[in-house]
């Protein structure tokens, strides 16, 4: 197998080349568009910006959670506590609102709690070296208990009209505050991953922890940061859900764990770490929500919905993996950081 010599004269790729050379992403995008357009054909309805926006509104919460979960996957871990964090965030926010605290304070408090939970997770995972699955499962269990204990006397559901408006009010063309928030989160996360040293280190850590350690990456700090971001995103989503639904359901977070993981996987992020980016995840979220919507309109039973979603997830995973099983290709490789 010949090697090129020197290789200095590699052309700088054009923008179009950069975007399209990640095959996985292109296919995913195509599938997303296809699925979305097919909903109109199947339900014989018409495209309207309003409908698209309401879809995005519903998707925004999952979108925010998955922004955090993606980080955990990128370093080869996982956060199974996001559901409980979402629930707890909603409950805490509710409690604080009934104490008539202003929105800013409540938001700060809830996010701080998220950061704290993430820090605890991060500590046990990076310093004590408990496996992320185990630690976050345990933490999820603990937080679930805490949520139950907290609600056991407080049945009032506090809320703030400002929050409700943010989550629900139409700011024009059907865009709600939550969608904008999702956009902001998505862009911030992408910038973080692609343009900061931290983002680079996340990929290096996920790809080869030992090499990262020996290259001077502060593995403890990176892991702590990752899990703190993850829990903070979950907390943010939790408070948004509170605003959107107006109540605190104990099962509020449950719909964001497994579907969140599914969306991250659909988005091409490898559970082994080191590969993937938020662009794919966002499309994955969109596909998942569109699918759910479509199936709901088709009156598909929960049973069949589950089967279909499981089958689609399986197919996608298989497709992604067979693309990687080719070891020695000399064509442009998948770009890691989109």
């Amino acid at each position: 197998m010949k090697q090129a010599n020197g290789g200095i004269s590699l052309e700088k790729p054009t923008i179009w080349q950069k975007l399209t050379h990640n095959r996985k992403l292109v296919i995913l995008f195509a599938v997303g568009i296809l699925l979305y357009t097919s909903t109109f054909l199947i339900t014989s309805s018409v495209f309207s910006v309003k409908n698209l926006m309401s879809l995005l509104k519903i998707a925004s919460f999952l979108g925010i959670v998955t922004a955090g979960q993606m980080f955990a996957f990128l370093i080869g871990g996982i956060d199974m506590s996001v559901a409980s964090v979402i629930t707890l965030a909603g409950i805490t926010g509710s409690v604080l609102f009934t104490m008539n605290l202003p929105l800013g304070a409540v938001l700060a408090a809830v996010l701080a709690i998220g950061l704290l939970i993430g820090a605890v997770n991060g500590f046990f995972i990076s310093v004590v070296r408990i496996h992320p699955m185990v630690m976050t499962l345990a933490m999820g269990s603990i937080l679930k208990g805490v949520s139950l204990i907290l609600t056991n006397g407080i049945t009032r559901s506090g809320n703030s009209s400002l929050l409700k408006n943010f989550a629900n009010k139409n700011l024009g063309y059907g865009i709600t505050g939550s969608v904008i928030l999702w956009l902001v989160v998505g862009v911030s996360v992408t910038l973080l991953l692609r343009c900061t040293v931290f983002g680079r280190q996340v990929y290096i850590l996920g790809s080869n922890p030992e090499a990262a350690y020996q290259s001077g990456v502060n593995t403890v700090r990176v892991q702590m940061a990752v899990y703190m971001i993850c829990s903070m995103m979950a907390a943010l989503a939790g408070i948004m859900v509170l605003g959107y639904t107006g109540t605190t359901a104990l099962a509020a977070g449950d719909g964001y764990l497994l579907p969140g993981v599914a969306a991250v996987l659909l988005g091409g992020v490898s559970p082994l770490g080191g590969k993937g980016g938020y662009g794919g995840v966002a499309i994955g979220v969109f596909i998942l929500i569109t699918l759910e919507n479509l199936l709901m309109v088709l009156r598909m039973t929960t049973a069949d919905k589950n089967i279909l979603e499981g089958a689609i997830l399986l197919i996608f995973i298989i497709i992604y993996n067979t693309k990687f099983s080719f070891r020695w290709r000399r064509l442009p490789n998948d770009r890691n950081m989109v």
Partner: protein
Amino acid sequence: MPKKMLKKHGDILPIILILISMFLITMTLQSNFWSVSNFQVLARQLAPYVFIAMAQTMVLLLGGMDMALGSLVSFANVMFASTLGHGALDLITILGILALCMVMSAISGLVVYWFKLPAIVVSLAFSFIWSGVALRVMSVPGGHIPNTVVGPLTANIGGVLPAPLLLIVLFIAFWYLVKRTSMGVLIYAVGNNREGAFTSGLPVLKAYLFSYCFSGLMIGMAALLLSAITTSGDPNIGGPLTINSVTAAVLGGVAFSGGKGKMIGSVVGGMVVGMLVNVLFYLRVPGHYTYVVEGGILIFAVAANLIRERGKRA
């Protein structure tokens, strides 16, 4: 001699200590704990947890993880509840459903094997599929398990030995026999280094088939015993069971990376998890604390194990 034994079996030490402490705590809180009838009831209620612990262990040893365990239990449970009640035919039906569990589990394993995918991810997809199938069989709780089935499964043999306990012992014995054969070494080898196993000419496929089929059988048994307790079917019964099974196995010293761990550890872990869920309920402790305690014990046990292992290396 004791030091070598500690090194070899030290990973199940924490969980045994935890079990003993739980016994002691419940003993002080409940006066009639140490009675034969109480133990019999306890055995019946812990048995499903022991079986799911064993099921998860089989997959963990191979280097994977089964996230679809709970859904498969739900499926088997609703199948039992909706097809039993035909007298002598029930035996065949039970065997058939157990076989079906083995096949379904094997399908999952084969996908993992053929496409070389992480088991967590594949089983996640299958958990959706199996839970959907379970809902198709029965969309709301219902069905009935006839007394002719419940009876033998909850009986006490010779008036003393609970049937579930006997079943557990039988399966543990079977596993330990297998462990001493080349299949046993094979499973641990694959869990240690799948690529290396393949390059060394080991029949990796056989390991996958055996482990996943055995796991499926354990899942079916768990569902069977659970059905005998609830005497009905519930398509969501398996919800928390996946997490319970992982907790039980990890408590018992089974490594996430694969190729390491003892079945007896998981069995004890299953007992601990089962006790947490049941006994605390017994003692009228509000369910909320169960979750906190379960999470706390898990963190403690794993951390203790890790620190012990690191101390060993220093």
